[in-house]
């Protein structure tokens, strides 16, 4: 697993798909390839209110990535320093084995180059001290990027605030 975690605050995500465009624009990708994608589920009535889920699907940068172990040319790699899974375009021959292997559909086909594209957490930006494109530009700021151990904090704080009930407390 990469040492990073990309946290999507689903409560403030509005499913606007800006992240998809920002990613493509930053990587200058043609039609078709979407290294990250928002999948809308719903609306569905929950307790009398219509609810939608916007599921953010980048690459999860697995600990033992199927795409890396199956890649016949060594193009798909895991960066030893931080565990980011990326594809070396020079070595990619476009065999699509990684596309078959990945359970989450993360590797994407670039119809112009005939090679695979995927989310690499914008490692060039990380190396320059910046955040991934999608996180930097997100319309609502619902995406947060950082070390996995820090990323649970938002949810914990939110849950604590929601469950602290001063009005009804007997203490």
């Amino acid at each position: 697993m990469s040492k990073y975690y990309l946290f999507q605050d689903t409560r403030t995500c509005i499913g606007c798909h800006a992240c998809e465009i920002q990613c493509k624009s930053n990587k200058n990708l043609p039609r078709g390839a979407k290294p990250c994608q928002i999948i809308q589920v719903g609306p569905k009535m929950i307790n009398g209110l219509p609810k939608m889920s916007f599921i953010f699907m980048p690459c999860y940068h697995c600990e033992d990535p199927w795409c890396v172990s199956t890649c016949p040319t060594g193009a798909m790699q895991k960066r030893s320093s931080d565990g980011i899974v990326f594809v070396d375009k020079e070595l990619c021959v476009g065999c699509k084995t990684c596309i078959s292997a990945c359970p989450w559909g993360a590797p994407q086909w670039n119809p112009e180059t005939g090679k695979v594209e995927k989310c690499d957490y914008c490692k060039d930006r990380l190396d320059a001290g910046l955040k991934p494109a999608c996180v930097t530009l997100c319309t609502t700021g619902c995406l947060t990027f950082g070390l996995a151990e820090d990323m649970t904090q938002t949810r914990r704080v939110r849950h604590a605030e929601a469950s602290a009930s001063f009005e009804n407390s007997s203490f």
Partner: protein
Amino acid sequence: MDKEVFSLCFMCSVRCPIKVKVKDGHVDWIEGNPHVAGIDGSLCPRGSAGISMLYDDQRVQSPLIRVGERGSGNWRKASWEEAIDYVADRLKDIKDKTGAHSIALCERAQLATHVSKAFLKALGSPNYFSHDALCKGSVNTACRSLFGYTDAEVGIHYGETKHIVLYGRNIFESLAVKEVKTLMAALEKGARLTYIDPRVTVTASKAHRYWMIRPGTDLALNYALIHVILKERLYDAGFVSKWVHGVNELRDFVEHYTPEWAEKETGIPAGEIIALAREISKDRPSVIFHYGYRGASHQNEIYMRRSILMLNALMGSVEAKGGIFFKKGPGEAGGKAARKLVSQEFPKIDMPRFDKAGTKDFPLPDPNHGVAQVFPYAVLNEDPYPIKALIAYRMDPLMSIADTAQTKKALDKLDLIVTIDINYSDIAWYSDVILPESTYLERTDCIQQMNGLKPQMFLRKKAVEPRYDTLEGAIILKRIGEKLGIGHYFPYETMEDLVNWQLEGTGFTQTDFEKKGFVAYGSDQIFWDRENLPFKTPSKKIEFKSSLLENAGFESFPEYQPVKAPEDNDRFRLVVGRSAIHTHVSTQNVPYLNELESENKLWINTKKAGQLGIKNNALVEVASSCGKGRIKAFVTDFIHPEAVFMLHGFGHEAGRAKRSFNKGLSDALIQENVYDKIGGSPAYHDTFVSVKPL
């Protein structure tokens, strides 16, 4: 050769502040201006597609002169000199023969609007009209009737609100970054969101209360809310007695508009209406009844918008934190606004406007914007006089004025149609000459005066050289003006000259914008003293009983007219709206945006679709009294059975915009050109359509 430039986005008309990174003469990266609170680096989907638009070769690349029939798509390339001469010669001819008033200019208002207005004034024509009336003419009139200020002078204080009510204001899809972020922050702090719409949107999915109202009946809901608020004395009595004129008349008027009555009209249970009135009044004055972004749905639009604004006044949320406020200009902070070309002396114009706005025939719409949907009628009927030429400046009358067939017929009567745009819009395609404008990333533009709680100025600054043979709009109009002998009204050679001219006397120079992309007149939020509110109505109060309306011969409180339901089982009220991906009719061909959303679909209620044999994703025919077309159906439980819905802006006819050509269906083709004859907005949701499977 890397550089960073602060500028203003223009993928939609919100004009969010941006920072552009340029590498080797190419735009490499765009982000929201990190120095602007509420933007903090964010960029919406359309803004994020700016680079995709800039490097798209399907935009207009040089001046073009039509060689075939209008709309045939046969063009020849022209030099700027030839194209400008061509336009100027014909304009001069028309001016000499039928007078300057037979030349009209329509525009999506923008930073160089003072240039186009000056152009027409110098020419001697009163016939400037903008997109504004199409969007919110009646909101403007409603605001003036109550406060004496236009809607453009009113703002919403989202950040500190405790409860916001949105009437179809789909704020999380038809979005502006700063609004979304500040409202989202307020919701995170515990603010409540009530959303009312015949259709479930993303905004509905974030709401604490959602009502699938019967389409067209929001006014009935509001009268019932007012009924409860007055009856149960839930209003801000101090504020109302000090600042409201006509509350007793309102009380008498709403007496019979009970929640039980409204339940029958709207489909919203009476108990829930009462509950909202009680709940929201607990949070006053930090509550917002949102008066609308687009306010152009029904022929009684002005009364609907007035009722919303009255609810704010009853809550005391006018000029209140977390409510609505009046925008403060530089003068409030001891500064001076940038100059505009329209402040020059022009020859007096005696002819009335084509739309008669501001005359006794059509007294209330704002003549500063005109009433765009009247244009086809004025041309066809030659009423009040013949019109011979139209300059369309980044506004598309064919796709934005209802009843495209009628608009086309009117355009066919014109001797000259000129379009200034970056895109092959449908109006460009139907023009005689296209004068391509440089994109927002390729041009410096006029000063953006940002009035608000903290008055500021922003500057759009050229990031890269134009990719194609394009010019800035303000330069195009100046060049045409020079050929027409009015060049002296345009005292600049370059955009930099013009900006310098604008800044003279403000105490700021262009260099001051380099650090953060904007300059501020002060650092504190300015709220007026609620004991001394400077309302600009004759009574100096908020006029529920409106002298503006009554002096023009209209009632302040006309009886509610029941909203009719579709007569037959296959008939529906057509409702339209926006998504987060596209801006009106202008972005459908932008590569990345087109990839995400390339066509619109017709939302139709599952039960109704079942009865009519309409399957999800299958083609249907939609027909009204003025037009028909084909579109794929989207069958869903999440729309009211009386309504069908489609996104605005699809079904383009311009062949060179290949990605958007003939994709989806244009709502304007189906909508009847009917409008609010008092307030000035079109009634885009007053068309009934029949839907049948194909």
